């Protein structure tokens, strides 16, 4: 499905309840010298407008590939989106050409990367880097560099950087990690995107700074109505900021539910295992050993047949060793890919 070119400015309004993003049966493969790596192997996902969706999973489960696939930032070769559909406001992102994509990237969908220090260009001031984004995407609205610079200053103020007039002329190395992440957020939010993809935005930061950044993202979401996809491995963060949660394992979304359901009624054995392996002082006080999921995440070379979790699963059944489970609905908005819930 190809839409009639680039959507017009201001055509954002949609019917309430419609999904901002719909991903259907997405397969992203990497053709490496060692063999075929199925980084995403049939991902279905939808994001409602104004919601925050958390994508949780361990390293190597395909979280980042999913985030990059949405923006079509997978480098080809070795990577390739071989199958699927990514519909953003009804436009199939996979059918757009480079020019059309460029009008969406950084403008309607923007991204925050994990390491703020390395994602900023060290030879330009932070002000000019933010202004560049604005000039590139908002030519109709912003004519001159000076105007863009003023807007950049406003953005720095919005993200809570102290004395932005001075800071705007700073280079990235003059700022701390937390401040750099704020600059990244300012840059990502500069064009008031409809969708913000944040890939582990706080992993490199201290807890107190992390709390500030999460608060900031929440506030911006409330103000602008931007939807957020938050990729993280920290279940605590998910509980604090997300409305919906997708748990990923070996390129599949194994469980998808509203945040309350995930924490009160996790169904997939992997989700349950993840929940129980988070250490807290309270667990220790009851003198329990910390639960650990046995084994490690399989690599593409030793991927088990059938359900890919069967070699670590405490509730494994015969069928799990032969066939990968389909999507079962445990509740209208709670899906799980586990044979245990076949009947539901």
């Amino acid at each position: 499905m190809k839409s009639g070119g680039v959507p017009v400015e201001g055509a954002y309004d949609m019917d309430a309840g419609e999904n901002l993003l719909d991903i259907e049966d997405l397969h992203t493969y990497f053709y490496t010298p060692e063999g075929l790596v199925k980084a995403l192997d049939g991902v279905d996902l939808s994001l409602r407008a104004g919601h925050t969706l958390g994508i949780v999973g361990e390293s190597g489960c395909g979280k980042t590939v999913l985030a990059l696939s949405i923006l079509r930032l997978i480098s080809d070769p070795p990577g390739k989106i071989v199958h699927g559909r990514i519909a953003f406001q009804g436009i199939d992102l996979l059918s757009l050409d480079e020019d059309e994509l460029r009008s969406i990237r950084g403008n309607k969908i923007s991204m925050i990367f994990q390491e703020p220090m390395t994602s900023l260009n060290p030879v330009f001031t932070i002000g000019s880097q933010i202004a560049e984004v604005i000039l590139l995407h908002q030519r109709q609205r912003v004519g001159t560099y000076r105007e863009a610079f003023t807007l950049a200053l406003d953005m720095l103020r919005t993200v809570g950087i102290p004395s932005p007039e001075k800071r705007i002329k700073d280079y990235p190395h003059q700022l701390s990690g937390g401040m750099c992440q704020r600059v990244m957020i300012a840059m990502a939010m500069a064009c008031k995107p409809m969708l913000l993809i944040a890939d582990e935005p706080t992993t490199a930061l201290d807890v107190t700074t992390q709390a500030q950044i999460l608060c900031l993202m929440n506030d911006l979401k409330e103000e602008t109505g931007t939807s957020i996809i938050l990729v993280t491995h920290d279940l605590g963060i998910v509980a604090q900021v997300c409305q919906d949660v997708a748990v990923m394992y070996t390129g599949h979304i194994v469980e998808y539910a509203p945040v309350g359901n995930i924490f009160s009624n996790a169904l997939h054995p992997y989700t349950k295992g993840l929940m129980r392996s988070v250490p807290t002082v309270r667990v220790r006080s009851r003198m329990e050993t910390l639960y650990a999921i046995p084994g490690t995440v399989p690599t593409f070379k030793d991927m088990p047949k059938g359900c890919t979790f069967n070699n670590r699963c405490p509730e494994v059944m015969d069928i799990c060793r032969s066939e990968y489970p389909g999507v079962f609905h445990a509740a209208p908005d709670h899906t799980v890919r586990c044979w245990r819930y076949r009947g539901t």
Partner: protein
Amino acid sequence: MNPLLEVHNLRKSFPMKSGIFGRASGFIHAVDGVDLKLFPNETLGLVGESGCGKTTLAKLILMLETPDEGSIIFGGLDVLHARGNVLQKIRRGMQVVFQDPFGSLNPRKKVRSIIEEPMIVHKTGTREEIRERTFQLLDMVGLSQDMLHRYPHEFSGGQRQRICIARALAINPSLIICDEPVSALDVSIQAQVINLLTDLQSRLKLSYLFISHNLSVVGYISQRIAVMYHGRIVELTQAQALFERPLHPYTQCLIEAIPEPLPRPGALKQSAVSSRNHQPHDRVGCAYLASCTRSRKECSQASPKLTEIETGHFVACRSPE
């Protein structure tokens, strides 16, 4: 009970170089008068944000850095003035597990020579004995014997950390300093390594100095926790008490900032904002002064001493709550 490790008034500062001639324009006081006691078979957690001096403190204890001032007593021996045999004995007694399991193993060496090296250096036995011990160590950390002839790059992060632990255990130390040993690992692997560490502790009667920025991990594994801020210990108490009744405003701020894995709408605390000031403070007053909500006039005049407020609960604050 005699402490295994006793650190008294330890100080270390690094010059801040500036200009083309690299003259020292000031000093960073990384460790600024730290007192600590670590008892046998105990885990002492050390938490604080990046840059607060945790790792420098670990390096000082391990003699990888020379302190400017202070004393370190390990097993009754003065570490800083030890030479020759005594120094060897001290070094045998403490080992370290580093944060990054990818950077702390020599990529050109096989697992076997990595684990054997400390035993060869310290001459703990004959070739045969060392071989035997290597097998035993592998078994202890949950690796199989056929892994001996592989190189580090063939292992996952969790397995590498197990190799690091095996290497640290090789010469039977009584103290292991764990500098962020699980920070680079995934949640499920992290749980495996934490369980391994606690299991080894109860079997071998080890002591750990467990350094981490993750309060939940430290809270789980430690008996006592020391909170560090700007090179100083600001609170030191039993793990349980620290979480239930934190007294220092900085500790309270840290605990509030932990994202709880329990969804509660609006639970994310705005109060965590502005916990850390980056300006090097003048060292006269309390280091936390700029961010403190309970500061008094005296706080800017002299830095508070670490005092025992309740039994076993030490706080460096004039108005603890």
